[in-house]
């Protein structure tokens, strides 16, 4: 037998390092140009959100009526709005708001959704029925209307918009996790874990959860993208950020009347939303390909 072992190890193909699934994923992620581009955009906006405000030329809420609606120039890169505020500075600050909303809304909905989904998928039976019906109901709601209703209850503010977005995204995560748990439950390594005498709780924690979480990461990244759009949409309807917060959707809504006269007030906030969302979408796609090639939209 030792001879055999030697033969085996004598193979020319010996990968001497432990290449874990994460490393493997990173490798394939790195290969994708679009994923890298997405990451670059995301990192750029994250950095912008963190350190950008320290460097912007003008205090964002400083009103200067003599400088209203100035076209982009070397002084005001993206022009000024109807308060004479520098749009560039406001967009930089707005990155912080949009990213915060996107990120936390997704964290909340992912945590709650995963919790419900795991319970539903793992325990099944009547709990599953109840939770699944609940998800059905939530999904049958036109989500934007639901968000509007939630904001109407809580009062319009960025924080409440965040809560509304978190709520409408719960069933998406819940369903995803539930189906993933159901499929992981059928995997042979779970059967194998039971065969060695492992308890259900341990199987859930050690085997089912880690393997079910991958789609959550992917979905989470993609959901940040949609959450940012949803926050902007609520802001656009006047149900999101409060004045004078430089939230991008609100900036768009505030500048609608200048579509003809001062289009820069609309173009730049819109571009900022689109780019950020694009970044997260690209990154999410890359993550999906790297982590979970089988997963589909």
């Amino acid at each position: 037998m030792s001879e055999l072992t030697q033969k085996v190890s004598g193979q020319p193909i010996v990968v001497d390092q432990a290449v874990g699934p994460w490393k493997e994923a990173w490798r394939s992620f790195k290969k994708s140009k679009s994923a890298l581009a997405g990451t670059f955009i995301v990192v750029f906006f994250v950095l912008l959100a963190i350190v950008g405000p320290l460097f912007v030329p003008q205090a964002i809420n400083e009103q200067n009526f003599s400088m209203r609606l100035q076209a982009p120039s070397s002084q005001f890169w993206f022009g000024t709005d109807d308060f004479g505020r520098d749009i560039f500075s406001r967009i930089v600050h707005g990155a912080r708001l949009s990213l915060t909303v996107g990120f936390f809304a997704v964290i909340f909905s992912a945590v709650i959704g995963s919790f419900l989904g795991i319970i539903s998928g793992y325990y099944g039976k009547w709990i599953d029925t109840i939770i699944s019906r609940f998800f059905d109901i939530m999904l049958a709601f036109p989500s934007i209307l639901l968000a509007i209703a939630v904001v109407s209850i809580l009062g319009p503010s960025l924080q409440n918009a965040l809560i509304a977005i978190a709520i409408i995204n719960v069933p998406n995560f819940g369903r995803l996790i539930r189906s993933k748990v159901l499929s992981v439950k059928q995997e042979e390594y779970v059967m194998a874990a039971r065969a060695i005498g492992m308890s259900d709780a341990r199987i859930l924690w050690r085997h089912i959860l880690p393997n079910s979480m991958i789609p959550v990461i992917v979905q989470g990244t993609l959901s940040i993208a949609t959450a940012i759009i949803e926050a902007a949409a609520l802001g656009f309807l006047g149900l999101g950020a409060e004045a004078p917060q430089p939230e991008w959707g609100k900036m768009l809504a505030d500048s609608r009347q200048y579509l003809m006269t001062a289009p820069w007030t609309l173009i730049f906030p819109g571009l900022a939303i689109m780019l950020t969302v694009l970044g997260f979408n690209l990154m999410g796609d890359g993550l999906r390909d790297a982590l979970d090639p089988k997963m589909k939209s």
Partner: protein
Amino acid sequence: MRNKKWLLGLFLTVILSLVLAACSEDDATTEGTDTGSKDSASEEETPQVLVFGRGGDSVSLDPAIVTDGESYKVTENIFETLLSFGDEDTTINPGLAKEWTVSEDGLTYTFELQEGVKFHDGTDFNAEAVVFNFERWTNGEAGEFPYYESMFTVGGEDVIASVEASGDYTVVFTLTRAQAPFLKNIAMSPFAIASPTAVEAAGETFGDNPVGTGPFKFVEWKRNDSITLAKNEEYWQEGLPKLDQLIIKVYPDNSARLNALVKGEIDLADGINPSDAESITSNADLQLIERPSMNVGYLGLTSTRKPFDNVLVRQAVNYAIDKKAIVDAFYQGYADVAVNPMPSSISGYNEEITGYEYDPEKAKALLAEAGYNGDEIELWAMPVARPYMPDGQKIAEAIQGYLEAVGIPSKITTYEWATYLEKATNGEADAFLLGWTGDNGDADNFLYTLLGSANIGSNNYSYYKNEEVDTLLTQAQTETDEEKRNGLYKQAQAIIFEEAPWAPIAHSTPLLAGKANVKGYLPHPTGSESLQNVYFE
């Protein structure tokens, strides 16, 4: 195989429709321009069709049961009242009543009606019809005819004791108490005379099939979209109306409405943003129309809440805000800086009061004197555009900046409009933006309604209560001598100025815009007017 056919079918249908669209597009454009040029050529033969764009749909076309201005914009053209306002002011003019007399004690009013007037359904207009309408309103269930209740009941008691026909064309009103603005009230849109036959026949659905005596007949209502009216060929005023058809179309979004106007899809548009005024005046195809101001936009300071329970703080706020700058920036100058709670065009306006000038230093001093501790206040901003305040959010942002400058930190808070009103009614706001558009151009409709303590929990949002003011205002209600009455109002305004329950901001000039060839349009300060004199040049 079957599958393929299905796909092919779908494909062909779509291609076909696109081709059709492409072909007919050309037709449409040429036709469109044709009609356009004919319209502007104002030839006698071609029908004159005017499209009026506005922000919201009517609730109902029965003027008696509604309270919203959008409904009156339409009903003014279908119905007429016994008396009518002047073209651009609230002076009393004959309407369906050609003459009227008032008794000495102010308790009996006799109206002589126009003869030969017919409702659109052919019913004769006469004294019986007037009596029928007033009886309908008097006998209505609580809440059914809200305006009738609010204008003709005082303290739960009916003002109108009886309405009787003393001849085919004579109507006599008997009041329980004198009411100074009675004639102005009678002229208000809600008290338009409807066809008794139609009301009885339609019952609850009268609001869908309105029948009046007005210059236009109702044709069609596509809810949330458009209402079409046609010329009343039998209209009793000779030569009117000049238009053949009137289409009132909803564009909820201000920008969308303006775009439609620019594109020639509509001829008249209300709710124009002051910021767009410049682009309209510089466009030769368009004209900017200013509606005479009869409103006030103000920053209410709830006098039951800290820190505004202190008059010094309220005054300080008044000093802190540069109202002129706000008017210039957000009304684009299409407003007067407000000093008093009512606009200067209303009789009884106190011209001696010049208002608080912009003086941040003085504001700081007052705050120091008041011992204001620098607590953050909530500054409420309305979420929707109102005629008296085109953009509450932005004005709030500006005010926030001014308050900050004198050391009052504030947080801008917004609720949905319905919630906003309710919460403000409950006195939950520290400082809030609101406003008022007059109904009948009477001082009572501003001062008593907005600042009388009886209206706390209703329109007195700032919870202002001053016994002296209350006494002056109730006295004025029954005082029929115009001079004396104005004196009372001037006194009240002086006290209100000192007490500063509000920081009045502006009396805006609501803007409309129209195609340059639209003539004869005279916007009315109340916001609703008949378009009978409008024509295309």
